[in-house]
């Protein structure tokens, strides 16, 4: 879109032309018209008019059409030959093309096009007014209020409902769903095998995606491809699809890809700033997902210091920084050893409420302090 206010702030000349249909504001320079090959254009119009007359008067005889075509070609040739000193190559070709395509009126249109030039700046459209939040349907509210949380369904509901809930969780595949599936596996209950199979399916799909990314990067090594591969790993770590035992190895691979993305990004200086910010964001997400909030914090601080305020990723980085800061201060010690006991089973700390309403899934997650800590 063209910024209308920028164009309006100038003093428009009487010869300024505007294109309101496209929203464009254009202007003409007074000296530009003086340099136009008016004589050549006038001769061209004259020849074209003659061609028209021959064609009309010829009573549809083939010879008259042939003569008219010859005259029209002459009109074009006049412009090409006589306007050579006044019009640059591309402009001359444009005028000739217009005259050739649109006999008689082509001259007028070519005059308009020669006399105008863009005068506005590109700008974002004004943001639409925020929508009023809609109140949910009362039936939906009642359903949510009365719904059992997913973990309770998985424990006490009839077998077919438990299976359906589990299948729905597997289809979701997000962090909440994966946490519930892992919790179900850890219970060793009747549904543990099915939860494990669902997790395996998610893991298989992730591995297939990862293999595709690796192949893509090997075939066409670009910063974007390397960053996309790292982002895929970061997302899988965030969602918990990657098992804790594999986090270290995959995080290392993602770090290598990000280093590669940075190296490849330096070869494209035009996009350097936006690429750097995007890489920083993925790197920070990765470290957060790999339970290294301190590293994430350092990366974000560095990234925010170097990023311009207009960069769209700055907002995301700021949000992530808050989260990293909280995590880094609450539990600065990273558990390196797999054999160290986890702080508590997921199910002890967390309760996911996923209600199914009219086919939609509404989820919320609650964290509970372990009972031992309360005492």
């Amino acid at each position, binding site marked *: 879109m063209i910024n209308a206010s920028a164009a309006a702030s100038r003093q428009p000349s009487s010869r300024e032309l505007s294109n309101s249909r496209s929203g464009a504001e254009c202007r003409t320079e007074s000296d530009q018209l003086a340099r136009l090959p008016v004589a050549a254009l006038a001769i061209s119009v004259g020849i074209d008019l003659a061609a028209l007359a021959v064609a009309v008067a010829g009573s549809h005889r083939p010879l008259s059409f042939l003569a008219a075509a010859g005259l029209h070609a002459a009109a074009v040739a006049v412009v090409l030959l006589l306007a050579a000193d006044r019009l640059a190559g591309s402009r001359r070709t444009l005028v000739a093309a217009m005259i050739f395509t649109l006999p008689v009126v082509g001259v007028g249109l070519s005059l308009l096009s020669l006399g105008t030039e863009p005068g506005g700046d590109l700008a974002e459209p004004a943001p639409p007014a925020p929508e009023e939040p809609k109140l949910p349907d009362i039936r939906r509210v009642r359903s949510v209020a009365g719904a059992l949380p997913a973990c309770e369904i998985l424990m006490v509901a009839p077998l077919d409902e438990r*299976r359906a809930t589990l299948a729905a969780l*597997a289809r979701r595949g997000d962090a909440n769903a994966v946490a519930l599936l892992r919790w179900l596996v850890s219970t060793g209950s009747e549904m*543990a095998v099915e939860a*494990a199979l669902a997790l395996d399916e998610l893991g298989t799909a992730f591995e297939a995606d990862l293999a595709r990314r690796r192949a893509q990067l090997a075939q066409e090594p670009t910063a974007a491809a390397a960053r996309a591969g790292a982002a895929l790993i970061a997302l899988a770590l965030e969602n918990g699809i990657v098992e804790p*035992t*594999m986090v270290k190895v995959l995080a290392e691979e993602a770090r290598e890809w990000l280093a590669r993305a940075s190296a490849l990004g330096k070869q494209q200086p035009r996009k350097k700033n936006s690429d750097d910010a995007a890489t920083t964001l993925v790197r920070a997400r990765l470290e957060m997902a790999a339970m290294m909030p301190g590293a994430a914090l350092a990366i974000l601080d560095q990234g925010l210091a170097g990023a311009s305020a207009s960069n769209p990723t700055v907002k995301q980085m700021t949000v992530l920084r808050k989260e990293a800061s909280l995590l880094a201060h609450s539990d600065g010690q990273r558990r390196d050893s797999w054999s160290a006991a986890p702080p508590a089973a997921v199910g002890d700390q967390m309760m996911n409420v996923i209600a199914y309403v*009219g086919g939609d899934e509404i989820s919320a997650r609650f964290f509970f302090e372990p009972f031992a800590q309360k005492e």
Partner: protein
Amino acid sequence: MSVAEARPLEPVFDENGWFQDDDEPAPRVADVCLLVEGTYPFVSGGVSSWVHDIIRGMPERTFDVLNIGSHAGAFTKPRYELPSNVLTLRCLFCRDEELPLVGHAERTELDQHIRSHRRGASQPSSSRVLNAIRRLHLDDRIDDALVADLAAGDLGVPTFLHGGASFDLLLEIGQHLAPVTSFLDLFWQFRAMHVPLLRLLSAPTPAARCYHAVSTGYAGLLGAVWGLRTGRPFAVTEHGIYTREREMELARATWIRDDEGAPDRLSAFAPTPSALRQLWARFFRKLATVAYHRASHIITLSEANRRKQINDGAPAAKIQIVPNGVALAATGPAPPPGPEPAHGPAPHGSATPSETAAAAAPLRVGFVGRVVPIKDVITFIKACDLALREMPLDVRIIGPFDEEPTYAARCRALIKMLGREDSIRFLGPMPPALIYQQIDVIVLTSYSEGQPLVILEAYAAGIPVVATDVGACREMIEGMPGPDQALGPSGLVTRVATPRDTAAALLRLASDTLLRRRLGRAGRARVTAHYQRHDMLESYRALYRTLVEAKPWQE
């Protein structure tokens, strides 16, 4: 030809799917017609090994083997050499092979053919098979009349597909069981559900003195129907619980579309399976119930399975537990009474010179089985990686890996990614006598098992086991209630898909030689007391005697 002289077999089938046997040109009536689904002799694994063992172990009996497969291309080369007491091997397929796309002229001709068939096929509304299908879906009663209707076999696939009566039945089922389901979805699922059934029911009945299905499902139903048609007894053996396995698959199946925006789901507090999933689950439950109803004997492997079968409608009085068994000599020489540990450090400074020498060598951990997803080899590899972070191990994956090449490649890629190529090795299939001589601990991380032979073989060799809590594994490791439990545990039970558990168990066994020794001894005692091959064979010998001699065979 004795049983030991098994025939190298390249099966050739005639147009009816019968195996052509040059040695036996005149077909004889077999003592037992064994019905299997997609296993023996084309797929290796637990059920196939069991079938092979039963047939080889009873040279005095003759067998027909009927394998039900999905389509003709599903079976390629047999994995087992058929023993000489197998008279015929026959394959029945649930669906045709994929047809190539036809051109315009051929399609026009096909359309005309279908139309003329439809005009000519005035589907009698009194089809007994159609009535039985109706009852399977809309009536809870299972009785002999239902099986008799199925056995009537008066409905072919073309008539079913183009007849008005079957369309009316589809509408009726839709109204009652899937009122908000897309009719097109219902139609295609209805078709996919019943066409295999009709194809199987219309197959010629092989003569046999008794029918023995090695699962419920299609095999069980066919056994029940053939038993009724011929007046011969029918028995069913279940290793895993077929209905449960199908329900697990159906819950995750992506080829069944769920109802979207169904109004009754708005008020539901919990998600319910879609009508189509319920339709399929109910269908398989009914097939199992028909088999349970008609079977004179229902055999299962463990107490846990027995309880599930009763829960699924099997009469308790018919159920008999016959556990799998192994020959004690098959896995090599028995360990000495007070076995010295082969590898790993001895605790509390009690190391003997041999133990001290062995302590330098890493513990030899074995996975024995097919490298397929259901065995969850991925978890095994992850667990070994975790344990390898703490101490050296020599990990060997023994078994065929050509059955699911993609999965095997995934396992190899994981090993490479973990940088464990030197410690975790694929050795391929090996004879049992060789396997257990070079393994200190057997690990099983399966998602699903019946009563794994590999555990029994390990016990016979005095090797402790780490296994997931699936099938009868817990019962096999911790013992059945009673004197078996007094023998003590013979391994460690872990949770499924939990590498941390398996790794912890491995480390515990690697660091505690006495524990390993004690578990191995308990395993040997357990297999000697409860899981011997000759006991299993004797049970089946007695069963077949009862079935075959139930009443005189009428030619």
